[in-house]
Structures are given as structure tokens and as C-alpha cells.
């Protein structure tokens, strides 16, 4: 395997980690959308914990190895249109995903606090509102669509 092959492998592996994290987050967000008991919501948040690592590895890995690939390969340049499009989409995906994820982090903190106070089995209207927050959902949709567009951009390579 050449150096280019290894770079490509790590770039693709990071992309898989990123999408895997999004799938985990979506599975948890959909399953927990009507949950109002802190103890139950914490069960869902435990499933999402490994995805917190995957999203960081995926987000940073895709851009770092992607730029490295563009520098290393003679056929591509960092200023190629499809590379610049990917970087813009990456920034949109990361920004909207981070903003959308903040609401779920707030919900997790609230659930942890309520459970610590011994109210884990009591329904909480505030927790339910945060878990079903429509703005957060739309931000996550925007983030996922941006990732899908990056994949399309990577395959079609417009302007190349």
C-alpha cells in the first residue's frame, strides 16, 4: 500500500465514523422524542456516548486527511472547486451539528440533575420540550443534508 492509499483509507474511515455518529444521534433523537422521564432519557443518552467520540474523530479526520490528500495527490489541488465546495459544506455540517447538539446536551444535563435529586421517574415537561425541540431537529437535518451533499460532491467532483 502506498502512502496515498493509507491517506485515502484514513479519510474514508473518518467519513464512516462521522456518518456512524450521525446515525447513532438520529436513532437516539427519534426514539427519545416523546420521553419525559429523566431516568429513561439517560438510558438513551448512554447509547449516544460512543458517538461523541466518533463525531470528533470523523469531523476532524475527514478535513485533515482530505486536505492532506489534496496536497499529496498530483491530480488534485486544495483550491479545486469540488474541494472548496466540500470545505464549505463541512463547515456548515459542523456548525449546524454543534448548535443542534447543544440542545440535547442541555437535556442530558437536566436529566442528570433531576435523577441526582431523586426525581428520575417523575415526568418532566421541560425535559420533554428539550428532547422534542424542533429547532434542534432542523439544525440536525441541515447538518445531515450537508454531509450527504459532501458525499455527492466527493463522488461527482464537479469542475474536475
Amino acid at each position, binding site marked *: *500500500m502506498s502512502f*496515498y*492509499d*493509507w491517506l*485515502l*483509507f484514513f479519510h*474514508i*474511515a473518518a*467519513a*464512516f465514523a462521522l*456518518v*456512524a*455518529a*450521525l*446515525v*447513532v444521534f438520529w*436513532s*437516539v433523537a427519534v*426514539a427519545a422524542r416523546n420521553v419525559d422521564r429523566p431516568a*429513561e432519557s439517560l*438510558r*438513551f443518552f*448512554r*447509547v449516544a*456516548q*460512543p*458517538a461523541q467520540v*466518533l463525531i470528533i474523530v470523523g469531523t476532524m479526520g475527514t478535513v485533515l486527511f482530505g486536505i492532506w490528500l489534496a496536497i499529496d*495527490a498530483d*491530480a488534485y489541488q486544495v483550491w479545486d472547486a469540488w474541494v472548496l465546495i466540500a470545505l464549505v459544506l463541512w463547515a456548515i455540517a459542523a456548525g449546524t451539528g454543534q448548535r443542534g447538539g447543544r440542545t440535547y446536551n442541555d437535556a442530558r444535563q437536566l436529566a442528570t440533575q433531576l435523577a441526582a435529586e431523586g426525581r428520575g421517574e417523575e415526568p418532566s415537561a421541560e425535559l420533554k420540550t428539550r428532547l422534542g425541540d424542533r429547532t434542534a431537529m432542523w439544525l440536525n437535518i441541515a447538518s445531515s443534508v450537508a454531509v*450527504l451533499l459532501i*458525499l*455527492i460532491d466527493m*463522488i*461527482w*467532483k464537479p469542475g*474536475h
Partner: protein
Amino acid sequence: MLAAIRPSDWNFPLLLHVLGAMLLVGGLVTGVTALILGWRRDSAFYSRFGFRALLFVAFPAWWLMRIAAEWIYSKENLAEDPTWVGIGYITSDAGGLLLLITLILTGIGARRLRRADGSGGGGSNLLVRIGTVLASLVLVTYLVTMWAMSAKPG
């Protein structure tokens, strides 16, 4: 480099193949995480969640990945299959079979755990545990496949 010389009519099936593979790995990560969590506590809850992630995400994604792979293969007209194509065929089909067995085992196991949970029972379930090991094996297999598909040995 390969992308630069790839005919443009391969792009759509390639998109479906890669998207299917990514969703498959995502579904497996979700399912395996939940099933592993269920070994220690709340077995009924995590087994049901893990089973649903495998059934509603990983299983349909496997079909998307596999059908799109066949679509691209039919366009390539290879005289002789390179090593990476062979690895892809073996791992995707064996992984699909293991995924199906996992679904059956965890489905039955999750159902039993729910009944036991309702009657005041609890604990884990051997079928779910076997399913967890198999699903983890499928996930590792597909990570090796991902390496073969990207590095293309041979």
C-alpha cells in the same frame, strides 16, 4: 486517481453503495452499543433498542449497499476479479447472513426479556448475548471490508 478515470455513469450506483455501507456501519454501531450496554443493566430496554436499530437501520442499509454493489459490478465488466472484489463479496455476503442470524436471535431474546421484565423478572438473555457477539463480529468484518474497498489490494 481512480475517481478521475471512473466513467460518470458509475457515480449514482457508487453513491448508493457508499451511502448504504455508511448507514450499515452506523446501524451496527448503534445496535452493538445498545446491546453491550444491556449486558450490565436494563437488558429489556437496551435489547429492544439494539434490535430495532439493527432491524430498521442496518438491515435495509445492507440491502442498499449490496444491490448497489452488484449494479456497479455489472458496469465494470472485469475480465478477472481483483482481490478486493473477492474480499468484498465474501465479507458482504457472510456479514449479511450473520446480520440475519443476529436479528433472529436478538428479536427472540428481546421479546423474552420484555416478558420477563413485565412479570418482575430481569437479567440478561443468552440469545441476546450471542447476538451481541455476532453483531460485533459483523461490525469488525465490515471495517476490514472498508479497508479493502478503499486500499483496493491486488
